[in-house]
């Protein structure tokens, strides 16, 4: 299969472009996504191709952006909204959670709300307390939503295309530090299913369960550990809701040990769900407690040395794996 090399940002842009070409119901709405091309340049060039009617710049009104996407979806469109930083989901949470996620059910299954909300997550850019968060855990807890957080350009493209074609609200978390990472993706059009994780590296000694940028760091850690003959299996969840339970369980059946790695503050985060599932469904397979490695219990600090220590780094992953293997 012929491939080409693109960045994560380009992969996302391709997904948007392809789906917009295919279906006139797909449109983009958000702040500075037109001429400016989005705060991270993801939508660059789309205004030129699709015009102001389908690449809609809005005032700074997150709640109206999300609500407008939901309303348009209700009448048959397939909006893709952009919220410039996932920290701002706190401003449109009502529309997402109380409207978008619940409508179908509350209306007795008579409505369909197919919209995608794309949003950048994560720290590492020195933007401090209000622009460096990871709020995916909140939305994994909401029945009616789907939540996706890809780690590679290939996954980003294939999953976004599926998200756009999905008939439910999908929150699509893009990690800022991944935008410029590169990957070979198929030349041909392709889709990847929501709800399926992927083994990004096989190993027999321990399973690392991760998503988004932590997959990449876990792969780095696995390389280092391999030098000490520790063979790590790295699972990329890709979708957080629905979750690919089967993949995790199979892996842990083999490795008998697991670590869950994630970026947001460790306490009360979605990572605990994976531990709980393994507790419930793989207790007898476990040779050691499943540990979590999450972020520090603090808001994102500005100072770059502290910011680095806020979230798991490769060496932290190496250490926790060794700790579990002891």
């Amino acid at each position, binding site marked *: 299969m012929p491939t080409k090399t693109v960045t994560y940002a380009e992969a996302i842009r391709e997904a948007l472009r392809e789906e917009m070409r295919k279906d006139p119901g797909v449109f983009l709405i958000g702040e500075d996504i037109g001429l400016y091309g989005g705060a991270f340049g993801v939508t660059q060039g789309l205004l030129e191709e699709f015009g102001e009617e389908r690449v809609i710049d809005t005032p700074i009104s997150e709640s109206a952006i999300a609500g407008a996407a*939901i309303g*348009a979806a209700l009448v048959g469109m397939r909006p893709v909204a952009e919220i410039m930083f996932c920290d701002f989901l706190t401003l449109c949470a009502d529309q997402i959670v109380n409207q978008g996620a619940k409508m179908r059910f509350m*209306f007795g299954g*008579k409505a369909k709300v197919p919209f995608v909300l794309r949003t950048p997550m994560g720290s590492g850019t020195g933007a401090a307390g209000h622009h460096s968060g990871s709020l995916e855990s909140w939305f994994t807890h909401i029945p009616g939503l789907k939540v996706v957080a890809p780690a590679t350009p290939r996954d980003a493209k294939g999953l976004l295309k599926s998200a756009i074609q999905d008939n439910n609200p999908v929150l699509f978390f893009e990690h800022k530090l991944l935008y410029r990472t590169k990957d070979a993706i198929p030349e041909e059009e392709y889709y990847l299913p929501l709800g399926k994780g992927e083994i990004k590296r096989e190993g027999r000694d321990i399973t690392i369960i991760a998503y988004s940028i932590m997959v990449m760091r876990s792969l780095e850690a696995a390389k280092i550990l391999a030098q000490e003959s520790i063979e790590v299996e790295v699972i990329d969840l890709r979708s957080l809701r629905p979750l690919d339970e089967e993949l995790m369980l199979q892996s842990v059946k083999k490795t008998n040990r697991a670590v869950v790695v994630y970026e947001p503050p460790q306490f009360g985060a979605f990572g605990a769900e994976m531990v709980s599932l393994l507790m419930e469904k793989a207790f007898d397979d476990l040779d050691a407690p499943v540990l979590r490695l999450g972020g520090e219990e603090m808001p994102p600090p500005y100072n770059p040395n502290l910011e680095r220590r806020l979230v798991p780094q490769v060496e932290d992953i190496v250490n926790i794996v060794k700790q579990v293997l002891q």
Partner: protein
Amino acid sequence: MLTQEEKLRMFYSMYLIRRFEESAEELYMAGKIWGTFHLYIGEEAVAVGACSALHPDDYITSTHRGHGHCLAKGADVKRMMAELMGKRTGYCLGLGGSMHIADVEKGNLGATGIVGSGIPIAVGAALGCKMQKNGKVVLCFFGDGAMNTGAFHEAVNLAAVLKLPVIFLCENNFYAMSFSVKKAFGIQDIAERAAGYGMPGVIVDGMDVLAVYEGVSEAVRRARNNGGPTLIEAKTYRFKGHSKSDKNVYRTKEEIKMWMERCPIKRLENHLLQEGIEAKVLDALKEKAEQEIQEAVRFGMESEELTLEEARRLVYAD
């Protein structure tokens, strides 16, 4: 100009709403309906006048006080009553209840329990209509209380700058729960806010169905002709408490009495009698409404409930 037939339809619709609400209240007292609900009694002219100005396939969005909107947009009384009784034959299969009735196929994009939250949705629907070039407009109902939510502000401004085909219809019944408009606003007339968004602001007498019809019709014309949104303030009053738990300590008996004397149904009735309609014609309509309600109650009582298994399958679409 409205024909007499149209006015009679309006009369029927208003009367039906009134009787629906009264009988819902009785059923609540009798324990056949529970939770809480918000009666539309006294405000019937707003929903009926407004929805009469729409095409059947135009959209509305509704509120927690939504029974009237729903019926005025042509809902089936049986399915509404069944919904209040939590039955599978209800509009939402018994999952939504009073505050969440929707009939998306018929253009009712649904009620909401979160004050103000339907406004962005109405704006999105209008955006969809504009993109689909289907000539439809969206009529967005909300209360005076909703005017002070952030959702109102963001959504109304977005509609104004995108020139969307939406009509913002504020049902100003002078109270948001116990909080009076006098305390909630620094201005006399809520419609004044429209100017800040660069859209027309219009005040109509919400106790006069014909005035509401006229005011909304003009806004609908503007919206359909690409003239963008309008904010309409319909001054009205709820004769009953805010919800079932309201002790009504914040309004005087005199005030309530004064407004009840302006009953919109009585008013239209008088108007029709003056236009020469015979009383027995109106009586026949009342009788018909009565029958429809009775039948709906029976229908609701006899209907079954959804199972948990079935409910579970409704969370996600395929």
